[in-house]
C-alpha cells in the first residue's frame, strides 16, 4: 500500500523540515541546560531568595502547558521583540519549559554526591569553589547524563507544537503533505523514522560521553 512516488516527491520537504526540527531541538536543549544549571545552582547555593526564585520558575514552567508558554513568549512580550521571530520564540519557550525539568535533574544529581566526600574535602582544606569544580559538578554531570538525554529526547518530541507559532517543522510538514496527498501512512511512517534517527544520534552521543566520563564516577 506504500506509494513510493508520493514519498519521493515528499522527501525533499520532509528533509528541509528535519533540519528545522534538529536545529530547534539543539537550540532548546542548550537553553534548557544553561537555564537548568543556573536555576539548580541558585536553588542550592543562592540563599532563600535564590531558592524561592528557582522553585517559582520550576513550578510555573511545570504547571502551565507548553502551548500557552509558546503563545506567551511569541505574542505576550512585545517589548522584548520576540514577535516575528518564530524560531527564536519557539527555542526560548521549549528551552525554558525543559529548563524546569533540567533544574530538577541537576539538583538531584548534585544532592546525590555523598556528603562524606564534601566533609573529607573540607577536612583537607579545599576551598568551596574547588569543591564544586573538582568534586561535586563532575560527578553530578556524569550522574545526570542518562536523565538529561531522556529530557532532550522529550524536547525533540515537543518541537511539533512550535507549528502553532508558524515554525514549519517535520510533523507539521507531514500534515501539510498528508492533507494534499491523502497518504497518511507513507508520510507519517517516514517522519517517525526521521524522529527515531535523530533520537538515535542523540542517544549514541550521550552513551559515548558516558563511556568517556566513566572514570569520573563515584
Amino acid at each position: 500500500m506504500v506509494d513510493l512516488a508520493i514519498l519521493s516527491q515528499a522527501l525533499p520537504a520532509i528533509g528541509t523540515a528535519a533540519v528545522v526540527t534538529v536545529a530547534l531541538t539543539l537550540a532548546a536543549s542548550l537553553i534548557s541546560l544553561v537555564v537548568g544549571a543556573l536555576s539548580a545552582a541558585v536553588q542550592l547555593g543562592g540563599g532563600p531568595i535564590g531558592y524561592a526564585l528557582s522553585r517559582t520558575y520550576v513550578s510555573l514552567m511545570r504547571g502551565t502547558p507548553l502551548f500557552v508558554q509558546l503563545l506567551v513568549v511569541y505574542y505576550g512580550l512585545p517589548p522584548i521583540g520576540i514577535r516575528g521571530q518564530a524560531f527564536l520564540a519557539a527555542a526560548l519557550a521549549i528551552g525554558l519549559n525543559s529548563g524546569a525539568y533540567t533544574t530538577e535533574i541537576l539538583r538531584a544529581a548534585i544532592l546525590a554526591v555523598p556528603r562524606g566526600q564534601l566533609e573529607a574535602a573540607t577536612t583537607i582544606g579545599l576551598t568551596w569553589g574547588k569543591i564544586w569544580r573538582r568534586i561535586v559538578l563532575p560527578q553530578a554531570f556524569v550522574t545526570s547524563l542518562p536523565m538529561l538525554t531522556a529530557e532532550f529526547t522529550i524536547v525533540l518530541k515537543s518541537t511539533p507544537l512550535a507549528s502553532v507559532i508558524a515554525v514549519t517543522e517535520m510533523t507539521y510538514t507531514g500534515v501539510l503533505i498528508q492533507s494534499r496527498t491523502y497518504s497518511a501512512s507513507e508520510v507519517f511512517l517516514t517522519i517517525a523514522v526521521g524522529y527515531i534517527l535523530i533520537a538515535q544520534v542523540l542517544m549514541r552521543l550521550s552513551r559515548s560521553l558516558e563511556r568517556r566520563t566513566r572514570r569520573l564516577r563515584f
Partner: protein
Amino acid sequence: MFKRIAKYALASLSVALVIGICQPAKADALADIKAKGKIVVGIDPTFSPFEFTDSAGKVIGYDPELMELAAKGLGLKVEYQVMAFSGIIPGLIAGAFDVTPTINVTAERAKKIDYVIPTALSVNAVLTLKETSVKSSGIADLSGKKCAVKQTTQPEQMMKALNDKLKAAGKPVVDLLGFETIEQTIAALADKRVDCVVDDKSVLFEAIDKRKDLPLALAGEIGDAQPIAWAANKSTPALTAALSAELKKLKVDGTVTALQKKYFGYTMALPETDFIPK
C-alpha cells in the same frame, strides 16, 4: 508567607502576560498595510479544497486564490504565515497577521474577531450508491437507515441532534456507524454495510471525484448551512470593510462562481448581511 505572596505575584504576572496576548494591533491598519504593500495572511493549509499546498509547498486553493485576487484589487501582495490551526485564532487576536481565511462563522467567535462577508457555505449532504433504498436526504427518509459518519465531527453531532428529534416524534432513529476517515465511510458504503454517508458536501464531492470506480450519488443536502468567512482583528474594521468590498466585486464579475466550480464542483449562493448566527 513572603514566598507564598511572591508565588501568587508571579502567577498573576503570568496570567497578565497571557491576557497581554489580547492587546489590539495598530490603529490605522489599512493605511499601515497599504504602506507596506502586503497583507499578511495566517493560514493552516490543510483543508482541501479550501486551502492546501502544492508539491512545491506553495499555498493554493479556493480561499488563497480569492484572497490574492482581493489583495490585488487593493494593490497589495499576499504574504502567508503557515501555522497549525490551534495557533490561528490566538495569532489573529494578538495581531500577528492581518487576516485568516476559512473560519466557520459562529456567534461565540464573532465576539472576539470580525468577519469579512462569507466566501462559502458549509453544508452537510447525504451520499448513497446509485441504486439505493434512500429516497431523499430528508430526515424522514433516513429514519431507520444505517448511516456512516466520521466520529466526533460536526456532521455526527448534527445527525445525533436529528436523531433526538426522531426519538421525540416516536420514529426509528438513524443507525449511526462511526469511522475515522472519509475513505473508511466510503468503503462501508461500497460494501453495503451502510445505506448512506453523511459528511460536508464539499468533502463528499471530492470523494465522488476520487472514487469514480464506485456508483456514488449525492441524495441531497441535510441540516442548516453554516457560513465560512475570512476573519480579521476587531481593531481593523477598515481592512475588514475593504476586503468585503473587494469580495463583492469578485462576486459581481463572476469570479467567485467560477472559482467555486473549479474547486468544489458546485456553486453556492452566499449571504452578505446578517450571516452571523445569533
